[in-house]
């Protein structure tokens, strides 16, 4: 396939960026999107042009590092995949593909397509954990009976890889889906109930401080989430928050 790539280039966080156009030829439909980007970068390096910076790590849809807003959608036009799992067969010969970084004030661009998503880390630090003594006297997990339904829901929430597609897709740059997945993951399990009140209050407070927008229930986050995190989690977080606020 021969493609035209329109890519956001930005030298650093303070620079003014712009869209640059790069033609690329002989792209195999079996390539992953990131492999295509690797080929482009090899060509750019060969021509003495600065390669396009983009985030990536595991390249198997687990780490949550890859991002990119491809043709107006986070992780591109495919569903339930990260950019590294997106294949070039989803595009046609002659296509023009626009590639931008995830955009939100809370996710400042570091360079080109790489953005700083440490806001998510700070939200996680604010309460996305369970304080369990693990120094040799940890309780056997099987000793605590957990309803299968709750265990499944908690597991589903825990599959959030924190990639930020929810923020990138939301017209308000809201982080509610991410935060709600982390809140739900613990709120559903007995181990997480001890700190449930503080957790939801602190995580939402941190989310607001990071400058994410408000949720208006468009549902774009759920559709674009590579892990299919459900809006049910946001409803659960709303309940948890309401209950925690009335207690506190």
């Amino acid at each position: 396939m021969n493609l035209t790539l329109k890519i956001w280039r930005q030298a650093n966080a303070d620079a003014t960026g712009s869209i640059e156009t790069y033609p690329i030829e002989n792209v195999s439909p079996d390539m992953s999107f990131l492999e295509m980007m690797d080929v482009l970068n090899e060509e750019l390096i060969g021509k003495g042009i600065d390669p396009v910076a983009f985030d990536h790590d595991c390249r198997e849809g687990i780490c949550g590092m890859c991002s990119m807003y491809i043709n107006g959608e986070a992780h591109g036009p495919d569903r339930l995949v990260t950019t590294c799992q997106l294949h070039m067969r989803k595009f046609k010969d002659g296509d023009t593909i626009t590639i931008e970084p995830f955009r939100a004030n809370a996710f400042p661009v570091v360079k080109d397509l790489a953005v700083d998503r440490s806001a998510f880390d700070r939200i996680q630090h604010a309460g996305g954990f369970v304080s369990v003594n693990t120094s040799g006297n940890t309780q056997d997990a099987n000793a605590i009976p957990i309803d299968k339904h709750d265990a499944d829901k908690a597991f589903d929430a825990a599959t959030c890889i924190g990639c930020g597609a929810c923020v990138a897709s939301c017209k308000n740059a809201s982080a509610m889906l991410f935060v709600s997945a982390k809140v739900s993951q613990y709120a559903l399990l007995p181990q997480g109930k001890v700190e449930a009140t503080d957790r939801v209050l602190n995580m939402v407070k941190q989310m607001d401080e990071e400058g994410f927008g408000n949720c208006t229930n468009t549902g774009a986050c759920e559709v674009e989430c590579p892990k299919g995190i459900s809006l049910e989690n946001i409803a659960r977080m709303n309940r948890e928050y309401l209950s925690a606020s009335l207690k506190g």
Partner: protein
Amino acid sequence: MSTLIKTSLARKFAMALSGLFLVFFLLQHFTINLTSVFSEEVFNEFSHFMGNNPLVQFALQPVLIFGVIFHFVMGFVLEIQNRKARASKYASNNGAANSSWMSRNMIISGAVVLSFLGLHFYDFWIPEMNYKYVEVLPENPTRYFEEMVHKFESPVRVGLYVVSFGFLALHLLHGFSSSFQSLGANNKYTRAIKGFTTAFAIGIPLGFVFIALFHHLTAF
């Protein structure tokens, strides 16, 4: 409790609750208006009661006005905050791939409904306030039907009402079901809630359009 006042989630709850309150008011307004199609006397009786009952006039009416103002002011505040959260816009954004037009454009449908409220207040509420509290004219319990029918003689006004109710339907199609999600209701009843709210969002504005057209066509 103090945390519930100033956070993003508190604003979400406030929008949902004020929206549900306005939906409830809309249903009550529709029910009374509908009686005008069947019986001039019943409509006059209801209107006279609503216009003269002290509880309605001095307790419910101020609450309603506060609810309307709160909902639209908060709507504009949220829109401004949300736009600020992404200062640098996408060159290419395919919102239609993941969300409905209604959900992405609540500010547009809301602004049209707000403009309509201006016209509606000019048509009915301000003359009513003037009649009762400024000029203090003697109460005539049979005047309401005639006043209402007179307003619907103008095809331009009826046209504006029809367009406005179209936008109200678009606003409700997202807003009504969304308020349940905001208040934490996303469970086995969600499908039923979506079905009911969709029927309401289409049916009630359509009913208002029917009433306006009915009086317009039978006025001559």
